């Protein structure tokens, strides 16, 4: 959250005069200005026109004038439903349930927590937390994968089936899919607890738990690649890559005589299925076919 704050403020139009002067003198400023200006070449109104109200009116179905009858049963039901509604609201405000946010295949979303922390969920992931208790205890459960940008404050806990992550104020990514648990720290310090292990990660460090083995490595990225539309892997079993493809594209993939454990290093984009399949199959000399109902089959290439 601390890096690039001038850039952030500029994008928010919240720079002070002095800050603006400094920012405008920076080397990158002309480039940034150009990027923003050039966005207008893609403006919607150049290519798509909204019809006016008159043409909408043509499409509206005829409305019948209803004959209103006074019905006493209806009134009794109305009064009863007000009571039920009142009770439901009362219940809701007294016993506030937990908030659950989930994403479907091919979907990502960003949410803001009550303390201004931000969570971005990757596809097919879910977080659950109690908004009411948040000020006293920042703890949520995660299924799947999410990137966290945590506001400074008291302890913040992310709990998954295979391990938990504890931080103060920082940026990190947690991935828990099937048997695997992986945490990458981008800023600050995080503490990872899993089974008998407790490990501390600093910025640029990555921790992976596969079955019972804990592996440490480095990560040079500034943030998770999936947040920029790419899934990347370092020596990941092929089956994990395939599963992530299924999640991003909402397709079913059948492996035909192909090894599930071959290690894959590389990535695929989220917006072009054929491109993604090529990225994943070419390194192993495999071929793929897509059937009409979005069923993908990957098999050994015939020579």
């Amino acid at each position, binding site marked *: 959250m601390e890096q690039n704050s001038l850039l952030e403020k500029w994008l928010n139009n919240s720079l002070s005069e002095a800050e603006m002067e400094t920012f405008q003198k920076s080397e990158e400023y002309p480039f940034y200005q150009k990027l923003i200006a050039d966005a207008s070449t893609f403006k919607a109104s150049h290519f798509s026109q909204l019809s006016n109200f008159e043409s909408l009116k043509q499409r509206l179905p005829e409305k019948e004038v209803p004959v209103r009858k006074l019905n006493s049963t209806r009134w009794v039901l109305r009064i009863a439903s007000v009571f039920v509604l009142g009770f439901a609201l009362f219940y809701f405000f007294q016993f506030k349930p937990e908030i659950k946010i989930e994403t479907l295949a091919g979907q990502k979303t960003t949410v*803001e927590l009550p303390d201004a922390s931000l969570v971005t969920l990757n596809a097919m992931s879910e977080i659950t937390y109690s908004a009411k208790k948040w000020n006293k205890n920042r703890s949520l459960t995660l299924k799947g994968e999410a990137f966290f940008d945590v506001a400074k404050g008291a302890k913040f806990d992310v709990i998954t089936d295979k391990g938990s992550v504890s931080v103060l104020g920082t940026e990190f990514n947690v991935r828990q899919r099937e048997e695997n648990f992986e945490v990458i720290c981008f800023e600050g310090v995080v503490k990872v607890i899993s089974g008998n292990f407790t490990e501390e990660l600093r910025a640029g460090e990555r921790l992976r738990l596969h079955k019972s083995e804990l592996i440490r490595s480095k990560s040079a990225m500034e943030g998770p690649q999936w947040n920029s539309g790419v899934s990347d892997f370092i020596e990941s079993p092929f089956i994990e890559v395939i599963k992530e493809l299924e999640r991003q594209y909402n397709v079913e993939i059948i492996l035909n005589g192909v090894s599930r454990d071959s290690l894959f290093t590389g990535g695929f984009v989220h917006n072009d299925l054929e491109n993604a399949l090529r990225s994943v199959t070419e390194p192993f000399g495999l071929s793929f076919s897509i059937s009409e109902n979005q069923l993908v089959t990957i098999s050994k290439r015939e020579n």
Partner: protein
Amino acid sequence: MTEELNQDICKEDTFKHLYDSHATELHNYLYYKFGESCNPNDKTQDAFVKLWENCKKVLFSKARGFLYKVANNMVLNDLKHRKVVLRYQKEKPVDRTNENPEFLMEEEQYFKKYQQTLAKLSEEQRVAFMLNKVEGKKHEEIAQQLGVTRKVVEYRIYSAFKVLKEELENFRIK
């Protein structure tokens, strides 16, 4: 403005008022999120027709939410992961004396890359960025349109810009 909350959508004046308030924004939102091929104008009209058909059941204050939900569902029923490629239209340059073929080709490459990068952004990032920087909508306005907080909007715009500057770094004149 509390009288508005009880207004009857089935009355033509009220319905027209809703159209004037929300149609353009809904159209632009659909365009930036799903691209031209989803037929944003058609879908916007269809959403309003649906609103009219359900005018007795929808509260005035909930009309905007209804429209966005209906429009989104209609588009999602059609598309299955088509790449969102937004078209670009460059301003015709006034002074052509500086334009040698090399410059023109580089410019073409730049805009092609810009187009690809926009396609690479998540829907959320692209919509927030375009609505703010191209349509001039304030962060708070966008937040209300999308049903999220202002901070989330700021974050999506920031994320989008980071991807753009990284992908287009090579076109920077150093």
